[in-house]
C-alpha cells in the first residue's frame, strides 16, 4: 500500500498552545466505525486547529480482547495499518509517528503490534490561511487484525475541526488526552551520540547501549527487546539474551537471520520494560562492527 499524499515531517509535540476557539459552540466531531474486531476513529489532540500550526490527530483503534493490529514492521507476518488521506487543498498529512510496539509470538513466529485501545498519532500541516469556520479531514484506513487467525478490516473516517483565529486558551481534548499521553510515552527517543554500539559476534548481533537507566534502580525488574525496522536484519522471533551490567549498560544479543547476510547498520527501536510496564523506547541506528564489506547487504 502506498501512502499517497503523506510526507515525512517532524514536529515536536506542542506544549501549552495559547490560542482560542472562535466559536465556543463548534466542537471537534467525527464518528467511530466498527469493522469486525476493531473500532476505529479519527481523534484530535486539541479542540480546534490553528492556521499555520501543525495539528496532531490520532487514529484511535480499539481491538477486541486478544486481537492485535500491527506496527510499521509487522514482524514475521501481518501488515502495518495504513492510512490514505483525503484532505482539502493546502493541508498535508505526515507519516504516522509509530508508538513503540509490543511483542507477540505464536508457534515461533513474531508479531509486532498493539492490543487493547491505542492511538497512532499523525501531524497534519495546516496552511497559514484557512478561510473557513471548520474543516473536515477524511481518511481511508486499512488494517489487519489477528489473534490466531487474521482478518483484514478497514473504515472510511472523518473528523471535523473548528478553526481558531483568536489567541486565548486552546484546550486539550480531555476525552483523548490519556491516549496521546500513552503514545508520547511510547515515542522512541534518540540515542545520544556515543552511547551505543552494535557488533557482529558469530551469527548474532550484540547491541550495547549506555546511559538509559538511572543508577540504583532494581536491575532484576528490567527487560528489553529490539524491534528492527528491516525485517531481514535479524531473526525477528525468539529470545534476545538480555544482560544488565554493573555499569548500567544494556547488552542485548540479537539472533541473526539465517537467510540473509548481516546488515551493515542496525536500525530499529529498543524497548525497555520495567516489570510489566514500558519504561522507555529508543531509536537505534548504528553501524554494525565486524560485518565484512563483502557480506554487507
Amino acid at each position, binding site marked *: *500500500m502506498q501512502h499517497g499524499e503523506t510526507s515525512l515531517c517532524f514536529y515536536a509535540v506542542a506544549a501549552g498552545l495559547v490560542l482560542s476557539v472562535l466559536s465556543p459552540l463548534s466542537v471537534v466531531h467525527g464518528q467511530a466505525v466498527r469493522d469486525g474486531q476493531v473500532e476505529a476513529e479519527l481523534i484530535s489532540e486539541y479542540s480546534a486547529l490553528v492556521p499555520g500550526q501543525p495539528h496532531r490527530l490520532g487514529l484511535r483503534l480499539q481491538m477486541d480482547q486478544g486481537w492485535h493490529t500491527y506496527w510499521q514492521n509487522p514482524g*514475521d*507476518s*501481518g*501488515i502495518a495499518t495504513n492510512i490514505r488521506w483525503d484532505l482539502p487543498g493546502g493541508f498535508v498529512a505526515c507519516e504516522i509517528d509509530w508508538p513503540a510496539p509490543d511483542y507477540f509470538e*505464536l*508457534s*515461533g*513466529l*513474531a*508479531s509486532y503490534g498493539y492490543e487493547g485501545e491505542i492511538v497512532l498519532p499523525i501531524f497534519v500541516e495546516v496552511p497559514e490561511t484557512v478561510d473557513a469556520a471548520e474543516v473536515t479531514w477524511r481518511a481511508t484506513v*486499512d488494517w*489487519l487484525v*489477528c489473534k*490466531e*487467525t*487474521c*482478518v*483484514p478490516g478497514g473504515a472510511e473516517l472523518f473528523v471535523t475541526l473548528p478553526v481558531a483565529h483568536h489567541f486565548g486558551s486552546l484546550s486539550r481534548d480531555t476525552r483523548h488526552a490519556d491516549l496521546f499521553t500513552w503514545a508520547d510515552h511510547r515515542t522512541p527517543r534518540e540515542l545520544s551520540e556515543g552511547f551505543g554500539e552494535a557488533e557482529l559476534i558469530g551469527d548474532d548481533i550484540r547491541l550495547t547501549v549506555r546511559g538509559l537507566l538511572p543508577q540504583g534502580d532494581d536491575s532484576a525488574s528490567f527487560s528489553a527487546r529490539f524491534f528492527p525496522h528491516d*525485517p*531481514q536484519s535479524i*531473526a*525477528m*522471533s*525468539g529470545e534476545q539474551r538480555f544482560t544488565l551490567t554493573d555499569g548500567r549498560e544494556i547488552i542485548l544479543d540479537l*539472533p541473526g537471520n*539465517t*537467510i*540473509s*547476510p548481516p546488515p551493515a547498520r542496525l536500525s530499529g527501536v529498543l524497548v525497555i520494560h520495567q516489570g510489566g510496564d514500558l519504561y522507555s523506547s529508543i531509536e537505534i541506528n548504528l553501524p554494525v562492527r565486524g560485518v565484512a564489506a563483502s557480506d554487507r547487504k
Partner: protein
Amino acid sequence: MKFAAFFGLTGLVTALAIVAMPVASDAAKGGVATGEPAPAFTLTDSNGIEHSLSDFAGKTVVLEWTNHQCPFVKKFYDEGHMQGWQGEYTAEGDVVWLSICSSAPGKQGHLSANGWNQKIQDKGINATAVLIDEDGTVGRAYAAKTTPHIYVIDGEGTLRYQGAIDSIRSTKTSDIDSATNYLASAVDAVRVGSEVVTDTTTPYGCSVKY
C-alpha cells in the same frame, strides 16, 4: 487466466506419513540463504503419493505455502490468479508446482487428504500436488513464515528465490495486476537459466499455523 484441469489428483487416498524429515526446531532457526542447496524433503500429497525434492532433479520447482482460510491466500485464489499461474507454468512439464500446507491439526487451514481433494476440485487448484506437512517439519526447514510464502528451486536443487509472491502487501485481489510479480520473475528466469534479479524478499501474509 486459464483453468486447466487439475493434475491426476483422483488417486487413492492413503494414510499421511512424512518419511524423511530434515531436522529443525524453530521456524526462525531453519531456512537457508538463497543460492544454497534447498533443504531435502519427502512429503505425502493429498492422494497419498510421496514426493521428494530429489524426484524433480532437472526441473524448476515452485514451493507455495498455503492456508486456504488465510485472507492473503484467498487474495490469489478467489479470482483464479494462483490457479492460472499454476496451470500456465506446469503446462510444459519443466516446472513442478508444489503447494504445501503446514497448518497443524486443529489450526486454521488444516485439511485432511480428503478435504484437500475436495478443495482442489472446488477451487480448480492446478498445482502438481498439494503436500501435507501437518507437523511443520518442512515448513520449519525452509523457515516458511507466511501464507503465501514462495520458494523457487532450480534443476540442480539450488534455492534461487524466497519471499513474497509479489510487491503489494495487501489482501486485495485488485492490487495483483499492478504489483511486481516476484514469483513469475523468478520462475521465468530460472526456466531459461538466467539470474534471478530479486532473489530474496520479505514475505507477507498470515503466519504459518504451526
